[in-house]
């Protein structure tokens, strides 16, 4: 622990690597979060091998029926649509992760780029970009996403996009990503503003490094710990956002989504609670996992703040 205190001496170059490792070693919440996230990842990768059913297989409708109780064929029973609940949960993990990672890939890249430029350049560039970011912070993202999903799904009729599998889901991912960059940009800008005045950056500048080299090899890696925390939080947020959009009935009819499972089953909650509670539980542990991981990363990035 003492070595870590040393590593964030303000004069010395701050620690750049090992954030995850430190998170796992020092933070219980981080460990739990990481465990939950890994569970979902493993389910997403290997889950489908565990089930004999295709994701949209409604054959139970012609056999045991909808809302059937658990049996040897359907370990968690079937839901209101005649889907095997376990199969839906397993495939839903893929959708959740793709949405979370896909959306954050977009918002992360955009946020770091815009925030980085604003923080490094300062002045008018900073002013303009941050006002632009504030615009994205205040727009009612859900209404816009719902409208765009609706309009786009109509606009692509008869075009090549229509044959693209999971088009609606892709649009949802894009929209969550495009409307999620502003917090990351603000955080990146703040970090860049702080770090660019530190001595090692000035030393690099005196050493003749170009602006690009300084940003990429000096400032960005040191700003990363704070950004990673936000990114982990946003992954959870994106998964929740997709679940909410699906819960409102605007999801992708072709994708298997926990939010959509909830939407179709919540009315029969009293008839067969498993069909609603199971996807709810999966959304809960996934989002909780990413949030706890973010918490752990935050602790690891700021050990002093934590101890105080």
């Amino acid at each position, binding site marked *: 622990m003492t070595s870590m205190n040393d590593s964030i001496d303000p004069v010395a170059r701050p620690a750049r690597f090992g954030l995850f490792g430190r998170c796992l070693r020092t933070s219980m919440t981080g460990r739990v979060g990481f465990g939950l996230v890994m569970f979902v990842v493993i389910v997403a990768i290997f889950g489908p091998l565990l089930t004999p059913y295709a994701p949209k297989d409604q054959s139970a409708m012609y056999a045991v029926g909808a809302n059937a109780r658990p049996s040897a064929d359907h370990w968690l029973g079937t839901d*209101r649509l005649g889907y095997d609940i376990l199969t839906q949960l397993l495939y839903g993990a893929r959708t959740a992760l793709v949405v979370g990672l896909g959306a954050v890939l977009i918002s992360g890249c955009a946020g770091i780029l815009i925030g980085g430029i604003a923080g490094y350049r300062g002045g008018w560039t900073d002013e303009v970009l941050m006002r632009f970011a504030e615009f994205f912070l205040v727009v009612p993202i859900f209404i816009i996403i719902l409208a765009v999903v609706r309009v786009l799904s109509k606009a692509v009729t008869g075009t090549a996009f229509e044959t693209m599998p999971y088009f609606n889901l892709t649009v949802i991912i894009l929209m969550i990503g495009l409307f999620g960059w502003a917090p990351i940009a603000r955080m990146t800008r703040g970090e860049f503003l702080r770090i660019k005045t530190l001595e090692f950056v000035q030393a690099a500048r005196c050493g003749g490094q170009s602006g690009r080299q300084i940003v990429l090899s000096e400032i960005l890696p040191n700003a990363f710990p704070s950004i*990673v925390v936000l990114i982990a939080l946003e992954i959870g947020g994106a998964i929740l956002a997709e679940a909410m959009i699906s819960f409102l009935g605007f999801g992708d*009819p072709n994708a298997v989504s926990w939010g959509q499972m909830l939407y179709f089953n919540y009315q*029969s909650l009293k008839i067969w609670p498993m069909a609603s509670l199971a996807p709810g539980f999966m959304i809960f542990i996934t989002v909780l996992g990413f949030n706890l991981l973010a918490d752990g990363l935050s602790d690891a990035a700021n050990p002093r703040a934590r101890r105080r």
Partner: protein
Amino acid sequence: MSNNQPTRREFLQRVGIGAAAMTVPTVIWSPAHAAEPHFKIYLTIFNNQQTRMIWTDLIGKNIAELGVEVVTSYVPPSEVISRRANETGATYTEGGFDMYSERIYYSTMMPLPDVLFSKAAFPPFGKNFYRVEDDILEQAMETYSSSPDPQKRAEALKTFEHRWYDIQPLHMVFYPEDVIAINPDLEGFDATTYNPVFFPRPENWTITSATGPDVSAAFACWQPPTTLVPMYSSGYNESNIFGPVYNSLMEYDSWETKKAVPALAESVTASEDGLVWTIKLREGVKWHSGEEFTADDVIYTWDTILDPAYASVQNSPLVSTFGSKEAYEKVSPYEIKVTLPKYSILFEGLVLTSISIMPKHAYASIGPEEFRKHTISTWTSGFTVTTSDGRTYEAKGAVGTGPWIPAGFDAMRKAYRMVKNPDYWKETTGNVTEFFVVNIQGADAVLSALKAGEIDAHDPMYDIGTLVSTIEEDWGKVLTFDSYKWQQTCLNLKHPVFGTGVDTPLGKQDPSRAAEAAVYVRQAISHAIPREQIIKNLIAGYGKPGTVPMPVTAEEYDHDYLKPIPYDLDLAKSLMEKAGYKYA
């Protein structure tokens, strides 16, 4: 910083993003579909009712089993409503629709297929959005609606049913049963609602547990109304509220018998050819304002609906019945003579029973542009009515002759309030003196409200069938009624494959057989609908498999001919093959 600790980058590469990225391809690339789809259907599903979303989607998946590419999307009803109203029969890619599903009914107790399926009912003014256009059906509907001879009418209806069953223009999925849970202490609730002719009749309700002279009852329906003027809407949300306030010339005695009996009319007699009708009006009936009801009110109502400036939804059937205002005249204050230009079943089936009579003395001064915004439409404020003898009456909503007097919109309860009319012309049996119509969205919510004692009954639109097992005897009594409605999948019959058939292989090869090929495709689709499974799994058995647009409990339904259509994908494929499609 110890050296044996992995770097963040290494860590991410090894386990984090690397592992998660493995999931991406499995999501993006789905299993390949059938080699080359036979054709494409855009299936638009209303996103407002889960049960229907589920069964429509299930039907789409079964159609896909026939090698058809089914592009499914969930859309708000407003989108389909605007798409289907085009004047040309445009397909989905042209801005119209290919296929959607809906619950539908004739809005009258007498089947009136021509209102929904005749060529005269094409959009934009009519409701034949599907563009059903078949000579035999058209002839049958024409004979049915224009023949005063009951025997001829029955035969025409039979022809209509048989032809429909054979060519399957649209697919009836099931005939739902109405399931309604009521307060166990409520007696006298003996009918479902069926707009606009059956609405709650709280004047006959008795709350057995109530003590004291003031007894209140509440009825739940899903959506707030758009207008409370009867000539502007025949929807459930509206007629549940305005229904108890007004009367028609004839009304239905009970849901069980569904027999029309005189209401504001005391007697209605027709000449042998069905062209000349004499309507004797009930004397001594008072409007809520105290004014006497006379023939002038009936004439005023018909005149107003016929006047295109008022843009009434009842204008089209009234125009086709009467032709013009010349068709009727006041003989005396209590007698009207109607001379129809030609016999029309709409007169008995719709004009006499479904048109609420409006008060001339109270409404005549309201211009066409004010009607929808007026208190009579909103019930949110009041207005003063002056009677012919100079008295004034403060109306808190509509003015009618019905058993219930509007008492405005109760903002606290978010409910439309009515009080019992002490001067109602007919004897009533209930003890309820105050009646509310509240808006509650969702089947779960409505049952919670019933359990909490907030409502006493509800509209059948909640489809609580699947939740019946959750209702306990001490707070809910479950009643079932035949619904007189059906759930159907609607096809655009201008579609080049399943509509006109010109794009089917058979149609291309021999254009004279295009229509025949389209019939094969529609029959195939019909056999791909798992009706029994839908009824068993999705509506808890409260329904019967659908065949033709005729209520299954109607006496006109020909049970001998209309056998349930089996779910049989092999048979469906063989029908597709008849249309020229090949299967490997």
